[in-house]
Structure formats: structure tokens, C-alpha cells
């Protein structure tokens, strides 16, 4: 089943066209990595998919339910209630975590399931403790985000997203704000989620991680999908000139 389908998504900021006719679909259990140079529109694509940004035109469908469709060349979004329901289908992990600093770790994870999804408090708490344990954060329930390392904060953010039981989880450069020695712990968590067949779309600059974990890699540049396919193919034997340039510069940097 297609968990996510984006068709002909276009987005411009004033005159600057950032996404040009992007189409993308994600199947159940699939892990998709999006790579590309800075400014290529990766974050904007995720932000359109997570309803933080509105598309100018295009179609957005989650689990067969339409969040937006194009009418007369313009994106028309579903009504508030429909979008509210659709928001339950996805979660997003930010580059700089965006944890709620005034909430304890446990409350960061529990609050939305309780006050947004109106789920049973005790149940949510129990699940949250399990999630935190899985993220290697046992004993940190009552800590505040400011008392944690960046890597720990990002793991709380992942737990917070997972607590909503999303069908699909988006990551926007989840390790870019971290010291190099902390990226490993986040990648490990995402790897584990991939093994559990969590459906994920990950924007990342970690090429070897993308190659090892993703089922499919998408290379974006200038608001276009330039190349996509099997991670080993795209990353080790790119066909397109621009992909080659990008990857060459990348391996030169490392």
C-alpha cells in the first residue's frame, strides 16, 4: 500500500522556484533517503509533506486520503478536520530537535498523545517509558531537555514522534546539529527502526548511512529530482552528471 503519494508538487517563495514538479511515493515499510546539495529544496519538500508549508500546486495523499489536490492549477487543501486526521499519519524529526524545554523528557513524549489524541494517560505513559528505554534513555524520564546531550535530545525527539504512532516518519537531517561523535547513536536508532520496517523518509548528508539503510535514494538538485533508485546504484554508480559532481565533492570532503 502507498503510504504517501506526492504528485507534481510545485512550490515557490516569491519569485524563487524551490520545488519544480516533484512526484514521489512511499510504500509501506519503505525507507527513502533524500540527498542533494544545500538549497536544493529537500527541507521544503518535507515541510510541504508535513503541512508546515503549503504547496502552490500538487497533490498530497496519505494512506489513500487526500490532504491536497490541484484544482485549476492551484493546490486546494482538505478541510481542517480531514487534515487533523491526516496529521496522525505522519511524524517529523527536526534537525534541531525542537523539544519543549519546559517539559520533562517524559512529558515531551506523553503530552501530545494525551492532549491531542486523547489517549488513556496510563497507557500512554507506559508506552512512553518503553519507547524511552528503546532509545537508551531509561532513567532520563524526569530530566529536562537542557540537561541532555544533543544526541539524547534527538532520541527524545524521535520517541516523541513515535509516541504518536505515525505510519510514516520524516527526518530532516537528524544528525546535522550534532557533534560527529554523537551522530552514530542517532543513526543506530534509525537503523533499528528500519529493521522493524518503519516507513521513513530521511533527508541526510550521511551518504554511507543512506546507502546502507535506505531502500531507495532520491537525489535532488535545484528543486528537481535528478536521479532516484537503488542506493548502491545511485551512490556508487550515479548515471547523471550532477549526481556524480555532488557525490564527488562529497567524498572529497570526507
Amino acid at each position, binding site marked *: 500500500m502507498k503510504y504517501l503519494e506526492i504528485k507534481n508538487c510545485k512550490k515557490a517563495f516569491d519569485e524563487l522556484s524551490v520545488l519544480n514538479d516533484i512526484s514521489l511515493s512511499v510504500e509501506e515499510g519503505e525507507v527513502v533517503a533524500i540527498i542533494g546539495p544545500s538549497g536544493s529544496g529537500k527541507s521544503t519538500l518535507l515541510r510541504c509533506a*508535513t503541512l*508546515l508549508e503549503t504547496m502552490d500546486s500538487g497533490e498530497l495523499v496519505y494512506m489513500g486520503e487526500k490532504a491536497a489536490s490541484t484544482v485549476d492549477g492551484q493546490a486546494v487543501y482538505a478541510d481542517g478536520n480531514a487534515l487533523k486526521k491526516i496529521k496522525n499519519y505522519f511524524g517529523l524529526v*527536526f534537525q534541531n530537535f525542537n523539544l*519543549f*524545554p519546559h517539559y520533562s523528557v517524559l512529558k515531551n513524549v506523553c503530552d501530545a498523545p494525551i492532549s*491531542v489524541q486523547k489517549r488513556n494517560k496510563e497507557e500512554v505513559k507506559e508506552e512512553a517509558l518503553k519507547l524511552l528505554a528503546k532509545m537508551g534513555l531509561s532513567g532520563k524520564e524526569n530530566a529536562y*531537555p537542557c540537561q541532555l546531550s544533543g544526541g539524547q535530545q534527538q532520541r527524545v525527539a524521535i520517541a516523541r514522534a513515535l509516541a504518536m504512532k505515525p505510519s510514516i516518519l520524516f527526518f530532516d537531517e537528524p544528525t546535522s546539529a550534532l557533534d560527529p561523535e554523537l551522530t552514530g547513536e542517532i543513526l543506530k536508532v534509525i537503523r533499528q527502526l528500519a529493521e522493524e520496517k518503519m516507513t521513513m523518509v530521511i533527508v541526510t548528508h550521511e551518504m554511507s548511512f543512506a546507502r546502507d539503510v535506505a531502500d531507495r535514494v532520491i537525489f535532488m538538485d535545484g528543486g528537481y529530482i535528478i536521479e532516484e533508485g537503488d542506493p548502491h546504484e545511485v551512490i556508487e554508480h550515479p548515471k547523471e552528471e550532477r549526481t556524480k559532481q555532488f557525490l564527488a565533492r562529497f567524498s572529497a570532503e570526507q
Partner: protein
Amino acid sequence: MTLWGMAQQVLSGTGATLLIFFSTVIFSMPLGLLVAFGRMSKFRPLSALVKGFISILRGTPLMLQLIVWFYGPYYLFGTQLSSGWRLTATILGFSINYAAYFAEIFRSGIQSIPLGQYEAANVLGYSKAQTFTKIIFPQMCKRVLPPVTNEVITLVKDTSLAFVLAYSEVFTIAKQVAAAQTTIVPLFIAGGFYYVFNFVVDFVMAKIEQKMNYYR
């Protein structure tokens, strides 16, 4: 008149001063938050109007505003001023003036919250109201505490401006006693009163700040 006698007289205004102080705090803060919303409204005419009012309230003397509140109804509508109006006008004048200051403090506090907080709340499905009450407002409170403390300390001293309406609070009485007894002592007593009052305010605000220090 003995020192003790003078002190007793001057401090008999304590209740009145405290009444102005607490009424102003209680009314001006929620009103200030409301005004801040108006000021941040995306509906341009509203935000422009609110901005204009804030500008006038902050740009003219509070003493003048108090006089206008008190005598305004008489000059504008010929209303006979009732005995209770003195206190009402005083509290109205203070509350509205301080609301303008608090509004600007709250606005900058709200606007200093990183956009990422709104986005995280949005993706998690919080409604706009939930996002404000659960995520933004508590963080705003912490951020605005230092400027709010400043404002409250100023308010303690400003309550003395009620003398222009001859409302019998500490300073009004001190001035009267000083004139009647031809001595400066009552003014020193009043000065001591305001100093101690602010000492307590400082202490309380520091405690609140401490309480909010559990996160950064």
C-alpha cells in the same frame, strides 16, 4: 507631633497604596496580554489601532492620564463625579497605562520563542489554542520575568502619582502631613515605605524566577 504619630498617619495610607498596586497588577497583566494579541493581529487595521494606543499611553505622562480619566467624564459628558469615581479612575488609569507597557513586553516575549516550537506543536497536532497555552505561554512567562519585575518595581513607586487625584495613599498623606507640620520627616517615612515595599517585591520576583529556573 511625635515621629510615631507621623508614621502612623503616613502608613494609614498603606491599604490604599496596596489596593492601587494589586488592582493594577491584576488588571493590567491579562489586559496587556490581550493588547499584545491585538498588536500582533494579522488584521492590519486592528494592529495599527492598537499600536497607536500603545504609543499614546507610553508617550504621555501617567499623571496626565490619571487627570484625564478622572475629569474626562465631567468635561466630555458633564457627568457629575461620584465619590467612588476617584478610586475607579485611579485604577483605570494605572491599569490601562501599565497594560500598554506589559503588552509590549509580552509581545517581544512571544516573538522571541523560536519558530521551531510552533512547528513541532503543529506537526504533533496541537490546536492553535493548545499551542499557545501549553507551549508558548509558559515559555513566554519565563522570558518576560526580568522586564516584568522592572515594571512592577516602577509601579510601586508610581502609585504615589495618585496624589494628583488626592486619593489618600501613602504619598498623598505624607505630603499633607509634611505641609501641616512643616517638617520633611513624613516624606522620609514614605520613602522608607516604598523602599521596603520594593524590597519585598524584589524578593518575591527572585523567588518566582528561581522557581522557573528548572529549565533553560
